[in-house]
């Protein structure tokens, strides 16, 4: 009997504790949920603010690059017009000026790249939340992936030409050290550098365009259309750069030929490079 009474007592106490627990849970749960919701709202607001800020910054950089590129192109053309007839010091000064102007554009391109990198993280964080419909989401992610794949290909072409241009430039420096007049090649090198910079800037624009797919803030048809335009323009820039490199190789070979005939050089150096003009 005593044991039974104890069991009843324990059951009552446990029951009371259970009821109290439920009651406590009911009073605390809404406040936790509210604070989590508030935090999420706050986080979303912060992200939106950050995205807007990055977008504004991007627009400004794009405008700067556009302006700088136009100036660069015009001024380089003017500066290089009298390059061959200028003195050695003047030539050096002209090249320094061009280099400095190009540096400004390159700095802006780097800033743009950094901006896009930061924005990319935010876009990926919100992508699945933004596109709830799985069919639509799958198609956008696939199109975005193909866009990036294409950008990588274009990038590899620009990178290849930058590498080749670097080698040609060092070849010209070697000729200069041997006392050869390289004034006919140096303007070509500068022109090629400008084309390279223009292509690099266009590449960032290309990247920005396909990243917009993930934001859902622009019509996909507009993004697809712009992608085609940029792809065409970029291809044209790259082809022009390719042609310019061929022109530089021919010019360098013409400068090296008299040196090779006057000195006995290994057979590998006497090979006359032939560049194909047909695309």
């Amino acid at each position: 009997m005593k044991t039974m009474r104890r069991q009843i007592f324990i059951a009552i106490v446990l029951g009371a504790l259970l009821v109290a627990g439920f009651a406590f849970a009911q009073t605390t749960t809404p406040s936790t949920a509210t604070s989590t919701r508030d935090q999420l709202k706050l986080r979303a607001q912060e992200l939106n603010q950050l995205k807007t800020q990055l977008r504004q910054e991007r627009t400004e950089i794009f405008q700067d690059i556009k302006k700088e590129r136009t100036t660069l192109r015009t001024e380089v053309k003017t500066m290089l017009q009298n390059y061959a007839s200028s003195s050695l010091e003047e030539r050096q000064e002209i090249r320094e000026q061009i280099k400095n102007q190009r540096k400004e554009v390159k700095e802006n391109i780097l800033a743009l790249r950094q901006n896009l990198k930061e924005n990319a993280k935010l876009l990926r964080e919100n992508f699945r939340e933004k596109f709830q419909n799985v069919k639509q989401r799958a198609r956008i992610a696939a199109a975005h992936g193909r866009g990036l794949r294409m950008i990588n290909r274009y990038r590899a072409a620009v990178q290849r030409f930058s590498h080749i241009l670097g080698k040609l430039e060092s070849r010209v420096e070697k000729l200069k050290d041997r006392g050869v007049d390289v004034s006919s090649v140096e303007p070509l090198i500068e022109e090629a550098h400008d084309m390279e910079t223009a292509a690099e800037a266009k590449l960032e624009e290309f990247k920005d365009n396909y990243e917009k797919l993930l934001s859902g803030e622009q019509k996909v048809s507009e993004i697809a259309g712009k992608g085609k335009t940029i792809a065409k323009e970029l291809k044209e820039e790259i082809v022009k750069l390719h042609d310019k490199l061929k022109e530089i190789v021919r010019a360098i070979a013409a400068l090296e030929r008299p040196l090779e005939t006057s000195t006995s050089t290994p057979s590998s150096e006497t090979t006359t490079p032939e560049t194909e003009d047909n695309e």
Partner: protein
Amino acid sequence: MDRNTLIIAVAIIVIVLATGVLYFLMKEEQPITPIVSDQKIRLAQEQDLTFVELTEEEKQALKDQGFDAPPSGEDSKTKSLQLVNTSDEVAAIAADINATDLSGLDAELAEIDKLLSGL
């Protein structure tokens, strides 16, 4: 074996050993001739473009709509553009320029168009 034979045998062994050592030393000193056409490097590309990994559900949704899953792995075109000669001889540079194939850079455009049409 008399003493003279022993001396001659030792002398022969010393000469053979000395010739061998000299041969290896001279071989190491010979300049390495650059092989222009065979030595290539691959240019490293910045890895700042992150793809959105499709979930199984999304892959299935693509398939249901008649689209192929996006190609995975390395793009052969990109890879071939990244390969360049190591030599800085004009002939090698010209070879790299001539070997550049710019066709098909925009091969993805048509598929992107299909994927995005009607969205």
